């Protein structure tokens, strides 16, 4: 089995630490203008069945820094809109000899399905309400840079946890690295049975963010109103907005994070989004470096077979690429 990055839930603590330190190393190298490893032989498919600007651009940037070639697909232009099943689309891309896939899809578990049929590495760029692992890795790198450690921090995830893949990935990641995770939100937007999720539930914002070192605000989707899960946006804002006043309840040095896009005036006010506490822009930037790390991590895994593995033409047998070293420090120097 090739190495995939489908979710944080399946990762060991060591894997997470490896990914974060790879990302930190890449960041330093990019900023200092030093060389990073080149994966110029790899072609990665960018398969976005659901609209995305930031994640897509971030993965494009990451691939660009690693000298990878990208092949772009989107829901509208792909044959999925002509009725092809996801499995057939994935098999087609496999035999188009793509080496890996970055995939976003509106259905939970769809990237796991793709990984089953693809035969090369698959990176989850967001599957339904399940996971968004690279977002969580970027958030962890951001917290680590500011706080020096993640262990023993209190991380409050505020908002629509029920429908949020960002919430799930972050909860797994921060809890696996030893932080205390809290889910904060109204009863209609917090899972009714959270036992298997790694966090404590708070329905009151004050209790939930009291003493928090990190507040991750989630985007509130307006369609939740149509579903009757909220009575009004203003009521929600009055109860759960992270703003100048409510931030006082958190730790003085508290970080405010948001996966974007922001609904200013709903889940955050301008003070929370742009003030001293905010690390939102750093999150965006770090997103690139963790995606570099993720691409590097899956593509240089020793478990990766040549793709497609069943290719039977003897003369075309792919050579096993020289084993890349497992850290960016092994990159060739210019």
């Amino acid at each position, binding site marked *: 089995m090739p190495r995939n990055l489908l979710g944080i*839930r399946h990762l060991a603590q060591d894997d997470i630490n490896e990914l974060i330190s790879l990302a930190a190393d890449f960041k330093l190298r990019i900023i200092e203008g030093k060389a990073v490893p080149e994966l110029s032989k790899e072609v990665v498919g960018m398969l976005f069945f659901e609209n995305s600007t930031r994640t897509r651009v971030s993965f494009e940037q990451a691939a660009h820094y690693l000298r990878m070639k990208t092949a772009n697909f989107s829901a509208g232009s792909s044959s999925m809109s002509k009725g092809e*099943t*996801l*499995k057939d689309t994935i098999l087609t891309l496999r035999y188009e000899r793509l080496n890996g896939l970055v995939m976003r*899809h509106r*259905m*939970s*578990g*769809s990237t*796991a*399905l793709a990984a089953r049929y693809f035969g090369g590495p698959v990176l989850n760029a967001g*599957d*339904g*309400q*399940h*996971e968004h692992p690279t977002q969580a890795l970027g958030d962890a790198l951001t917290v680590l840079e500011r706080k020096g450690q993640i262990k023993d921090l209190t991380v409050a995830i505020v908002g629509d946890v*029920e429908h949020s*893949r960002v919430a*799930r990935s972050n909860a797994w990641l921060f809890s696996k690295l030893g932080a205390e995770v809290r889910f904060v939100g109204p009863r209609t937007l917090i*899972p*009714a*049975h*959270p*036992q*298997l*999720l790694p966090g404590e539930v708070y329905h009151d914002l004050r209790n939930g963010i009291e003493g928090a070192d990190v507040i991750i605000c989630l985007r509130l989707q307006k369609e939740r109103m149509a579903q009757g899960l909220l009575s009004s946006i203003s009521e929600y804002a009055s109860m759960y907005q992270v703003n100048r006043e409510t931030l006082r309840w958190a730790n003085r040095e508290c970080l405010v994070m948001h996966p974007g896009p922001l609904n200013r005036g709903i889940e955050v006010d301008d003070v929370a989004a742009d003030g001293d506490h905010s690390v939102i822009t750093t999150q965006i930037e770090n997103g690139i470096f963790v995606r570099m790390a993720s691409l590097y991590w899956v593509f240089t895994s020793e478990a990766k077979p040549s793709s497609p593995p069943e290719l039977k033409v003897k003369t075309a047998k792919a050579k096993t690429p020289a084993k890349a070293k497992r850290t960016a420090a092994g990159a060739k120097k210019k």
Partner: protein
Amino acid sequence: MRTLLKNGRILDPSQDLDIVGHLIIEDSQVVEFGEEVDLSEIDEVYDCTGMWITPGLVDPHVHLREPGQQHKETIVSGTQAAAAGGFSTICCMPNTDPPLDNPALVDFILDKSASPEAGGVFVAPVGALTVNMAGERLTDLSALKRAGIIAASDEGFPIQNSAMMQQAMEFCVQLDLPIMAHCEDLSLTEDASMNEGAVSAMLGLKGMPRSAEEIMVMRNCLLSLHTNCQLHIMRVSTWGAVEMIRQAKYLGAPVTCEICPMHFTFTEEAVGEFDTLFKITPPLRTQLDIDMIYQGLNDGTIDCISSDHSPHASHEVEVPFEEAPFGHSGLESTVGVTLTMLTHRGVLSPLETIRKLSTKPAEILRLEAGTLRPGETPVAQVTVIDPECEWVFDRHKTFSKSKNSPFHGMTLKGKAMLTFCGSEIYRDALFSDDRYTINE
């Protein structure tokens, strides 16, 4: 032609009979059984030593998919699967394409299932309760009944409007027709694909709350109580539903219910990493539910076991979880799973097992089946089960056209070896040749 089934454990719940003895089929009829039988002029002998001889099994809930969905199953392949599963009578559900809402389609199904290519089992059609199963207008139930339906149901499209359901029940009382009901409040399950619980929360899947099932179980039980309409609740899954049915029976409502093997075998955790083979409605619940289902089976609240045979083609199953259809191909695993999970674990005695797989469903749906008594079924319906046979269920070796079985790879203990419906319609490859002799 006189056929001797020799030296088996004869289990006939219709007479509370559990003895070791012989059974004779002559000219397609059971003529005699007991410890001592007339052994003269026997033409063929099946040695059933160590095996059970039971009334032909009856499955109250099968999807044959024809007309319209022959890529999933046909009447021919589905009836062959039934025979291989030990069933001699099956009830087929109306959610075909078009749905079974007019008498011509009933004729079609009865004709096709009686054709020589088919599996040789009796097929008892269940008609649609409303036209196109749209829940808006009742079908011509009297014409459907004359054509041969044995019950009415809107299956997976349950009537939501209570007034409509009450009317349907009034009609069915008059026609003396049972209603089979899948109980689900659709307003609580929109876009949902598994049990609402810890696993759905972890996987980011919208869950079906247990209340969605229980609200409709309760409503339908109340309507049955007040109209006196015979109501058969299909595939219960929650402890609450079992408890409500227990209460409804206590109050005197003419209510019965069934369970499908998936619901007493797996919990929501079986969904694992989005495994669509474990997607079923109502969904797999929790261990507490299974414990209470055991109790319900044991005290008779749960009347019978159905395969809920719901074949789907591979391309329909190999999709993201939320897009996958509900249900599993179950005719050929039901006996093995039931014996493994219930009988061998002491939840049900052998006699009670056969009651729930044969006598009781026949009684509920008034089918001429479920008994070994001579003359009470149109032809001999007999199943021989080896309760000790250990085998690995392989979905690639089934008669069903569809391979969507969550039991694939499981070691099961207990297997249908022979099925008779008039004559032998199925003999398992594991029934050794030494056990069969023809007297020249």
